[in-house]
């Protein structure tokens, strides 16, 4: 390699670094560029520049993914965690569309995911207004959803011994992905015997289907809840969920991976690096509301922990087994489920939500309980 070429490549590496570094780190980009220029040996200068580029690349990636969101919506989003969640959901779906387009997925898949986002956000808007503060309504909703999950386990479509799906309008829907996050969001606020029975029924449904991913999500969520605020309802539900998860482990899971749905965290990089980065970035975006909320809204850390636990488990399950990669992979159920799970987040940072339970007796309601009612409505 000629001397001039090595020096040119060193300059190119420095310029690339400068072009990609966020504004807050621009002075470091200049520092590296000038330091490289001061090195007399061309090979050493090239290695210095390339090493600097590689070393700072993780920061560049993080900035490219998170900085635009923070810059555009930072303050407003932190004041409205649910709005940040909507933004992340939209971003993750768009990144998923990028992956699917690059991977050559059928156009119908792209439309299904886009439509699911619209449906999910519409449901979020409607339910965000319509869900009332009445504890009995939440209990009824939990029991109804548990019934739907049990019905799916008993009457749903059987694929290789797994019964997790129902067909609606020619589309295969996985009710657990849609309903379970919302059930858990409601249970965090509604600790009572009927609500606990609903969660136990959901754990039974996950064991019957069987669905390790959702069973693990249920167990980890309840474990997080129990760690934050221990009470007999949560402990009972946790015990049931752990048993349910154990049963899913005992039962064989022979489902093959489905293209554009399962195992795409790895296979997307075989398509193209951009597709792989889109999938990884989209998956990371799902956790941003939990991470940002944890850091910026200490009053509601329990809520953010539980929300993060839910989606971290689903992502990990997708990484470890043949389970749907949520939101970025093909499948509207997870998109709608993610949108509905945003109900768990407070509309405004600082308004108490999620982690604390409603008082057993409305007469016992504390100030924070009253805030909960406001946050849910």
């Amino acid at each position, binding site marked *: 390699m000629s001397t001039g070429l090595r020096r040119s490549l060193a300059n190119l590496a420095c310029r690339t670094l400068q072009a990609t570094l966020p504004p807050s780190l621009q*002075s470091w980009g200049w520092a590296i560029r000038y330091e490289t220029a001061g090195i007399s040996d061309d090979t050493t200068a090239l290695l210095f520049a390339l090493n*600097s580029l590689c070393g700072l690349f993780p920061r560049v990636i993080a900035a490219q993914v998170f900085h635009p969101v923070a810059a555009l919506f930072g303050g407003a989003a932190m004041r409205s965690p649910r709005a940040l969640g909507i933004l992340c959901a939209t971003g993750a779906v768009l990144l998923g569309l990028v992956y699917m387009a690059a991977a050559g997925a059928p156009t119908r898949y792209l439309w299904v995911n886009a439509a699911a986002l619209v449906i999910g956000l519409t449901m979020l808007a409607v339910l965000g207004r319509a869900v009332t503060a009445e504890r009995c309504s939440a209990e009824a909703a939990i029991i109804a959803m548990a019934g739907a999950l049990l019905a799916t386990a008993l009457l749903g479509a059987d694929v290789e011994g797994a019964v997790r799906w129902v067909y609606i309008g020619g589309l295969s829907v996985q009710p657990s992905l849609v309903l379970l996050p919302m059930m858990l969001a409601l249970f965090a606020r509604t600790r009572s015997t009927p609500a606990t029975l609903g969660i136990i029924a959901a754990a039974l449904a996950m064991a019957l289907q069987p669905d390790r991913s959702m069973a693990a999500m249920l167990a980890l969520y309840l474990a997080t809840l129990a760690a934050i605020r221990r009470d007999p309802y949560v402990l009972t539900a946790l015990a049931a969920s752990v048993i349910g998860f154990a049963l899913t482990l005992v039962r064989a899971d022979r489902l093959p991976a489905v293209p554009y749905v399962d195992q795409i965290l790895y296979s997307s990089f075989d398509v193209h690096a951009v597709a792989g980065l889109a999938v990884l970035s989209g998956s990371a975006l799902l956790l941003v509301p939990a991470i940002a909320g944890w850091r910026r809204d200490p009053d509601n850390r329990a809520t953010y922990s539980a929300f993060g636990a839910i989606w971290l488990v689903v992502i990990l399950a997708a990484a470890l087994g043949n389970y749907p990669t949520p939101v970025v992979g093909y499948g509207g159920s997870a998109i709608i489920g993610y949108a509905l799970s945003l109900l768990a987040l407070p509309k405004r940072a600082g308004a108490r939500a999620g982690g604390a339970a409603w008082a057993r007796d409305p007469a016992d309601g504390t100030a924070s309980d009253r805030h909960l009612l406001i946050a849910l409505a």
Partner: protein
Amino acid sequence: MPRRRALSPHAKTVLAVLLDAADQWSHGYELVRLAGVKSGTLYPLLIRLEAQGYLEAEWQQPLEGGRPPRHAYRLTASGVQLARANLPAQALAPASPRREATT
């Protein structure tokens, strides 16, 4: 108060080099050579140390015409404490003659 985490051997070595420089300013390539780390390890570390208040950085104008300015670094008082509390396992070899920092 910045949150502390265990320092890597590279970080300890860089801190020791900066400690050795005392009040003198050091430059990136000089630190790479003296600490035996790659620039890809050095700069993220410097960025972190500066953000946590352990390092101060300034731009120095060149003494010779036609040369670019340089970014120079030295430890703050809290950085000196951090470096002293995290000396590398092996004492530093006698440092090679230090280049005069441009100011």
